[in-house]
């Protein structure tokens, strides 16, 4: 599994065109970083910004299982509950201190709330089985879990390493971050900008962009305006219609990439009599015109799906026959299930959270009405949405778009279909058993088989109305070479101006 760092290094610098002057880059963000302490956040945008200051032990490309060594050179399980990582040496924090195993141990302890007078950090919920870290020597560290967690490395990219003893009394880490990353912190003005400069001695190679500014622009229209006027060089989360408006602009390039978020309607199969019936759930799936939504509403910037996980996740069964748009069939299924006259179904949807989420839910509701289901939507603020789903106070259904925290379908299934977990309104012992099996399977084949079986069950039992996977649309200055990443992480280390 371990890859060599030496291989990545020449690759990134070799293509650099030396005589193009490198200018600063400004990136438009929708919200401020939630915290400058990487452990105290759980937001992709914040992670994105801090990723440029801090490094994880291991990185991922966001879509495949391929992992890249960063601060760790290599890793292996020395027993099912202990992951041993060998760290790179000669790495320095931006304050000059050398990076050692103690930093990793400190980071983990801070994350888990094991430092004196500390409580678990906000990001701790990502690592439910992680219990401790132990330094073996200066370049070796053991991560210890409470139960076997073979896929622990896949979620380690989320863990950004902070320097030893950097928190606690008199800590300045939250105001002046210090990391091993490609960029050094310069200043942060809340609701305005976060400014970084290139580090001269980054251990993975030369950093080309001299200065990066993350500018906070909350309003989606203003964000587009500031991009189209050249105030910012890089923007993401453009609406499909905005892509067209940038069409005539010769200075910009628009890139649409499938994201890991899969939009679906969660159905309360536990409490709603109608939704307890498989035929009803299938009928609902046949009632949706996915093509209409992806073509009309998303202008092609989305793909219809029949699964929870993105197509590029592995392992995934790509041979499943999709639910077609067939209102007649849907009606007859409803009739067979004894709901010929339909039933009431309120769909809760959070505002201003998912791209065109409310609009899509509205479209779904009207398509369900067409087969006789009395579907209405209930818009709530995202905060309300989070609160209501947390206390499991939902109407018959809600619209959600769940992104996996790593490129592993199991992470997703564990979070949304396993009986009794936070985001699941479904109860299926067979499925749970399959997930358990995959969870502790050290053997890749067993793991794949279990997941593919699970996917089949999810598909045929339809505890969701599957909808679509929408693209994330990036806008960037044509002269900027930057490769957008499917989980929306903006790591500018390898970006450069090419003309």
């Amino acid at each position, binding site marked *: 599994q371990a890859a060599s760092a030496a291989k990545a290094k020449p690759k990134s610098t070799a293509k650099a065109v030396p005589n193009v002057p490198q200018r600063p880059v400004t990136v438009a963000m929708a919200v401020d970083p939630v915290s400058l302490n990487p452990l105290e956040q759980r937001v992709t945008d914040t992670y994105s910004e801090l990723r440029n200051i801090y490094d994880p032990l291991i990185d991922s490309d966001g879509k495949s299982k391929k992992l890249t060594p960063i601060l760790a050179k290599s890793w292996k399980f020395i027993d099912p509950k202990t992951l041993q990582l060998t760290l790179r040496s000669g790495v320095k924090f931006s304050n000059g201190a050398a990076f050692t195993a103690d930093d990793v141990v400190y980071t983990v302890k801070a994350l888990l709330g094991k430092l004196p007078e500390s409580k678990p950090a906000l990001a701790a919920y990502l690592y439910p089985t992680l219990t401790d870290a132990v330094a073996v020597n200066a370049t070796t560290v053991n991560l210890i879990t409470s139960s076997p967690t073979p896929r622990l490395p896949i979620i380690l990219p989320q863990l950004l390493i902070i320097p030893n003893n950097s928190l606690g009394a008199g800590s300045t880490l939250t105001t002046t971050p210090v990391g091993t990353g490609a960029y050094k912190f310069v200043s942060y003005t809340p609701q*305005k900008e976060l400014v970084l400069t290139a580090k001269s001695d980054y251990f993975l190679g030369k950093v080309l962009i001299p200065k990066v500014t993350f*500018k906070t622009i909350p*309003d989606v229209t203003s964000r587009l*305006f500031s991009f*189209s006027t050249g*105030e910012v060089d890089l923007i993401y989360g453009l609406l499909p219609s905005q892509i067209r408006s940038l069409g005539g602009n010769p200075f910009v390039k628009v890139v649409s990439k499938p994201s890991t978020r899969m939009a679906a309607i969660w159905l309360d199969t536990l409490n709603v009599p109608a939704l307890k019936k498989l035929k009803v759930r299938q009928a609902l799936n046949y009632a949706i015109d996915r093509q209409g939504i992806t073509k009309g509403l998303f202008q092609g910037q989305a793909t219809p799906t029949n699964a929870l996980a993105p197509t590029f996740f592995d392992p995934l069964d790509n041979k499943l026959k999709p639910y077609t748009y067939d209102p007649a069939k849907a009606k007859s299924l409803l009739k067979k299930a004894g709901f010929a006259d339909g039933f009431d179904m309120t769909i809760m949807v959070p505002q201003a959270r998912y791209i065109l989420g409310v609009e899509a839910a509205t479209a779904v509701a009207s398509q369900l009405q067409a087969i006789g289901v009395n579907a209405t939507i209930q818009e709530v603020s995202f905060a309300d949405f989070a609160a209501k789903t947390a206390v499991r106070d939902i109407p018959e259904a809600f619209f959600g778009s769940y992104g996996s925290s790593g490129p592993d379908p199991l992470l997703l299934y564990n979070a949304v279909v396993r009986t009794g977990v936070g985001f699941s309104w479904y109860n299926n012992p067979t499925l749970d058993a399959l997930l358990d099996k995959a969870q502790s399977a050290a053997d890749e084949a067993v793991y794949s088989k279990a997941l593919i079986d699970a996917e089949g069950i999810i598909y045929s039992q339809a505890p969701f109305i599957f909808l679509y996977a929408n693209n994330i649309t990036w806008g960037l200055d044509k002269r900027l070479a930057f490769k957008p990443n499917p989980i929306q992480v903006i790591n500018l280390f390898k970006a450069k101006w090419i003309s």
Partner: protein
Amino acid sequence: MDFKKRGEMSDLIKTQAESSPLKSHGLRLYIARRLLQSLFVFFIVVTVIFVISRMAADPVATLLPPGATPIDRENLRQSLGLDKSLIDQYVIYLNNLIHGDFGISTLYNVPVLPLVLNRCVPTFALALFAILWASVLAIFLGVLASLRPGSIFDRILGGIVSIAQGTASFWLAVVLLYIFSVKFRIFPVTGNSEGLKSFVLPGISLGLAPFVAILRLTRSSMIETLKTGYIRNANSRGLKTTRVVINHAMRNIAEPILSYAGILFGGLASGAVITETIFAWPGIGQLSMQGISLGDYALVQAVTMLASLTVILLNLIVDLINLKLNPVAREKVKQYGKL
């Protein structure tokens, strides 16, 4: 016709000598009274906000991340004192406020008070800009219109003002942005880093509502003032219109306009929430919008409290300024310690 000189003079002396019992400390008494009053008003605000915050079905749910367990919830419930009686909660809440503890921002995970205070300056700068142009222009135009109510100028202005009132500021903001920043590239789209240029568009959108309000107020109070006996009498002395307006009438419309300052500021604070979000202005308006959409209620409550505290203080200051401007009221205060 035999007049007693004594009687006549005694009348004169009486009115002069009728000195007030409180003259020396009436003003101090009044200020103390108003201060206490303001404090009480703020206490009411604080109470209202407390009541609102406890109206939630489950205040805890909004304060925790989605992955939170029931145990987390119970812990938070206890740490907030939500397991105690409402009265106890209220006492705890007041006690915290007195110690400057406005709660923890769930979004930023830091105490809200310093967070909010740190971001006041840009908001105040923008508000000041907005109120300056709005009031100067509005008072000027309002006075002009009031001199000849019903004239063509007055009617055209009335029409413009009516349309301006009907123009939703959020709508105007984006349309202005599109025209002046995107099409003509005169002003920056966002932020406050380009000096005065940055202030123009957000300033216009934020100042529109106060402009309409002040203009209407100026016009109507000026028309009223111009009807009073002393203005007509000033005319009977053959004074120039400009002199009558500036020396006599302006002074008298200062009071209603100033008294409106508190309400205006409240309006600006409301407007800032929308304007700052659209123009990415780094102030408390945008902060509270963020708090709203991400469910950071402690943050929103702190902003609300600070904004209303400002309004209350503003009202206090305005009352004192009005005392300075209005000798009748001043005399009354000096005598009785109240109005």
